[in-house]
């Protein structure tokens, strides 16, 4: 076997290290300056630098056509990790810019805010690049600890503190389950790394399949909590609603994408390891039930909300269900479909929160639907942007949300989950109701005395909106830009 030199391996870590270094820089810089605006710029620079390195590594890996590992296989540079790192960093960059425009107004401008965002993103990169379960846990905790704090960031805001506390308590519970699952898996196979688990389970004398199943289910639950599969989703509506809105936007893209990256890798490995037969059927079946429940709960839950932020929170649950279809489908097609869905969802979600944020009060409240009344006439650009985003999230062509649904449904059907795809399509019809309600309120409802006067939008927020909107349209019309790009190198599941 021809091993690459150790330094060549470590190059894979550069994006993560970049984020951590910039987190430290931003933190230190915050001690010496009162110029808080510069911190946002520094943080954004860090994200962009990490993005550039990721793209560079990605292109190099494509040219080479092989996955690269570092630290003895604990850290992987393959198509999945690069694609999901790319999406995470795009989401993080947009969220940093979005937060920056409202930082002062919402009293978020303590110097520790940006470092935590960067650390959370770094944890996300570790999560999607993990080559073994211990690294995966490490990444999950780096990310989660930062986000727990961020969710509770707003001082003297009970909802924010409640959100942080809830997230932390339940997250700790989920982590405990995950650790237990990892231990059981190790007990069954004697390995932590995915390649080793697969190899051990493939051995003809492998006897601990039952134990491995239990471990796999617990690992699945630990990750299902992060991506908010029902019945492990209940923290999400409360935390998304209570967290400061820029943090909610960050969570809805970075945390979700990272957790899905880990879930795709883990389920892919474990489903294969469990093999065929009655034991092998359990994990997909459990996943299918959970995903079906997630789509129902998310969409029907959103139906009843009168607050847009909470509606978007439930809709995040629903979208997790749709990405879940791709996870269930598995294989290259599943990973590609999931990556397209999350990539375009990143833009749509951040843009939606950007519009919402521009309409909310300085105490980070005021997301009631009625406040959008007559927005079509009062703020035609803002309304048009939100309308397109809503239609895309609802899955209307020609926007990206339509293609996203089409590819995940297609992947699910191709993998033999037609019934679940039908359920997905049916619940998507329900989703039209609450998304369309936003559009209708903006254009058809007359504003009354309680409708607040919209404030001017910070330029940075407008940029986020414009990018989100443009991406939603462009990747809807030209889905091949992403789909062809990621499909060209068939080394998704290669070489665990």
């Amino acid at each position, binding site marked *: 076997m021809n091993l690459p030199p150790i330094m060549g391996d470590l190059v894979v870590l550069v994006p993560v290290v970049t984020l951590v270094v910039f987190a430290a820089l931003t933190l230190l810089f915050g001690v010496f300056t009162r110029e808080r605006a510069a911190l946002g710029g520094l943080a954004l620079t860090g994200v962009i630098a990490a993005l550039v390195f990721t793209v560079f590594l990605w292109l190099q890996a494509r040219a080479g056509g092989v996955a690269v590992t570092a630290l003895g296989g604990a850290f992987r540079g393959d198509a999945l990790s690069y694609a999901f790192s790319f999406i995470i960093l795009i989401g993080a960059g947009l969220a940093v810019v979005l937060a920056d425009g409202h930082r002062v107004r919402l009293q978020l401008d303590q110097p520790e805010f940006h470092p935590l965002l960067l650390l959370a993103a770094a944890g996300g990169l570790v999560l999607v690049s993990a080559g073994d379960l211990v690294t995966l846990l490490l990444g999950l905790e780096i990310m989660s600890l930062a986000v727990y704090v961020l969710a509770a960031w707003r001082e003297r805001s009970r909802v924010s503190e409640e959100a942080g506390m809830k997230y932390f308590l339940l997250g700790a519970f989920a982590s405990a389950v995950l650790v237990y699952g990892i231990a059981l898996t190790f007990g069954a196979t004697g390995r932590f790394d995915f390649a080793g688990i697969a190899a051990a389970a493939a051995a003809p004398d492998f006897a601990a399949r039952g134990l491995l199943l239990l471990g796999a289910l617990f690992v699945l639950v630990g990750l299902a909590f992060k991506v908010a599969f029902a019945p492990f989703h*209940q923290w999400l509506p409360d935390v998304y609603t209570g967290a400061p809105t820029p943090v909610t936007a960050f969570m809805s893209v970075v945390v979700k994408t990272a957790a899905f990256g880990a879930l795709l890798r883990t389920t892919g490995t474990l489903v294969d390891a469990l093999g065929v037969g009655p034991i092998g059927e359990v994990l997909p079946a459990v996943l299918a039930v959970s995903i079906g429940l997630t789509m129902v709960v998310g969409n029907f839950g959103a139906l009843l909300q009168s607050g847009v932020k909470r509606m978007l929170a439930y809709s995040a649950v629903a979208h997790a269900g749709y990405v879940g279809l791709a996870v269930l489908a598995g294989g290259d097609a599943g990973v590609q479909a999931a990556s397209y869905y999350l990539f375009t969802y990143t833009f749509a979600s951040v843009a939606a929160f950007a519009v919402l944020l521009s309409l909310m009060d300085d105490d980070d409240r005021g997301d009631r639907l009625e406040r959008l009344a007559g927005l079509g006439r009062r703020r035609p650009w803002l309304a048009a942007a939100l309308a397109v985003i809503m239609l895309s999230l609802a899955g209307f062509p020609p926007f990206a949300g339509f293609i996203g649904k089409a590819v995940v449904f297609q992947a699910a059907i191709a993998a033999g989950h037609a019934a679940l795809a039908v359920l997905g399509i049916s619940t998507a019809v329900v989703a039209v109701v609450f998304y369309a309600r936003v559009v209708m309120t903006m254009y058809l409802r007359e504003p009354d005395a309680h409708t607040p006067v919209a404030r001017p939008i910070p330029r940075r927020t407008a940029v986020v909106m414009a990018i989100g909107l443009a991406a939603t349209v462009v990747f809807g019309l030209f889905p091949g830009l992403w789909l062809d790009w990621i499909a060209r190198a068939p080394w998704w599941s290669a070489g665990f």
Partner: protein
Amino acid sequence: MNGTWSDPVAWATLAPLFALAGALANGLFGRRWPEPLPGIVAGVAVAAAFAVSAIAFVGLIGRDAGVALTLWSFLPVAGLDVSVGVVVDALSTTFLLVITGVGLLIHVYSVDYMRDDEDNARYFALLNLFVASMLVLVLADSLVLLFVGWEGVGVCSYLLIGFWFRKKANADAGRKAFIVNRIGDAGFVLASFLVAATFGTLTIAEVNAQAGTFAFGAGVLTTIGLLYLVAATGKSAQFPLHVWLPDAMAGPTPVSALIHAATMVTAGIYLIARLSPLYAQAPAASAVVAWVGVLTALIAAIAALAQTDIKRILAYSTISQLGFMFVAIGVGAYAAAVFHVFTHAFFKALLFLAAGSVIHALHGEQDVRRMGGLGRRMKLTGTTALIGTLAISGVPLLSGFFSKEAILGGTWNSTLVEDYGSRVLFVLLLATAGLTAFYMFRWYHRVFAGPSRLTKDAAAKVHESSSLMTVPLVLLAAFAALAGFLGLPSFAFPNWFKGWLAPALAQVPTLHPPLWVEWLLVLASIVVAAAGLFAGWWIYERGKGAIAAKAGGGALGRFAEGGLGFDAAYRAAVVGPAEGVAGGLAIADRDLLDRGIAAGVTGSSLIGRAVAAWQSGYVRLYALAMFLGLAALAVVAAVVGGRP
């Protein structure tokens, strides 16, 4: 025939983009622009589209094959590659020129016509979007993309017909157009499913190529043909779905001109012409097309006799002329059908814009009974309207004469529908041609000639319209008069138009009767046109309309005025029951859905309530839910995994 961007012909791909850019610019910024700017921007956009169309036309002359360009792959659905591509060939280029050329004149005219409307920018944005949709429709290389344009046209027509939506009748007319079109759209979708299932592709060129490999008259081709006919009858206002078009004049008059001449209604003709190799293999479907066409032509011509609204007469005349085109396309005379689209675009746009000029001068008066003698006060409008009238009536050497003659000759000589009564079709069509001349003479005479029946107030204010409105009239009149020479009767003269279109259309063999028969057919069409005009002159000029007044007052006259009772029948048979069902649904909606959604307190949204109840807000209960989920999984693992 794969093209590249270096080929100027391919630049026609940009035409819809220009129109779309105009629509976007007007839609987003137009409201803040000063008065004529929205119109100018919209006009420039269409002019640019016309320019690239003209380049494509020049580039295609003398070339057999068109240019196909696959722009990008939209969605690779399992086994069915849905890509976005265009075809620029003789057929699409002809339509491009008509749409953008006539469309441009209508835009110019609109600048003045809509000058005082406060929603100017919305108007021009929609007008551009309408043109853009139609351009997408004719350029599409696949039925999927064609459907995108097809729907876009439908939506724009809805928005433009109901442009002055504050008046309920206008909004209703918009809705009627939309709903009737939906029926056609259902046919389109069903047909496309069948095409995908039969041919495994939705690319038009491949469908056409494969259709040739089927047996002549194969059942599946007939079914597809009939379903696309349903689509075409909706869009092109053919019997029995023609009822929306007479109401569609509720929109601003230039919109009527656009709908009737350049866009929308010709879409059905285009669709069938585009699929002509398929229809040429399906004689039964073709025969139905022809018979639908002739019935429509006749019914609409009769209804046109009794109308009193200046635009409604023209609307029925459009339906009737579209019937002529359907006959042509049904009997296999595809080039003749497209030729009639071409000539009709000029004289019908001319007639509508002339009507608009009159309405403008009379400040909204549309009843021909309160007009008359206007030609003396509005010389340019009157003269150009006369040219349009004579052209549509089929007076020799004007454009309508040649295109109508081509259709009549094609019908007589058809082999495709020879077994389905082609000679009867011919006779009925010939009679309709006579009626056309008659009702058009009536239209002209009631509006522009004879004694004035205007009120004193109105008469004092009559004025010729501004040059922005009259210049398009003059240009259209020139084309209406001369365009026919491009398609001289092919049995005796070189027919340039037919040769130009030949590579893009299916060629169906025709009968070749002796030359004297062909000349006799020409003579017949001259005679019926003359007879129609003479009858009109006899009744309205010499008899002062007394006979007509007596006939019009009778039951038969009222029947014709009501459009032969179609609206009444639909109201009784479809709209009434539908309203009953809708009323029931509305009650269900209020009582079940709305309450459940809005309040979530009562009603049927049980799942939503269950979710809400589950979401208690207490961490301990959430943790319990997670624990229970986990425990359930552990039990499953123990049961399944414990087994050997």
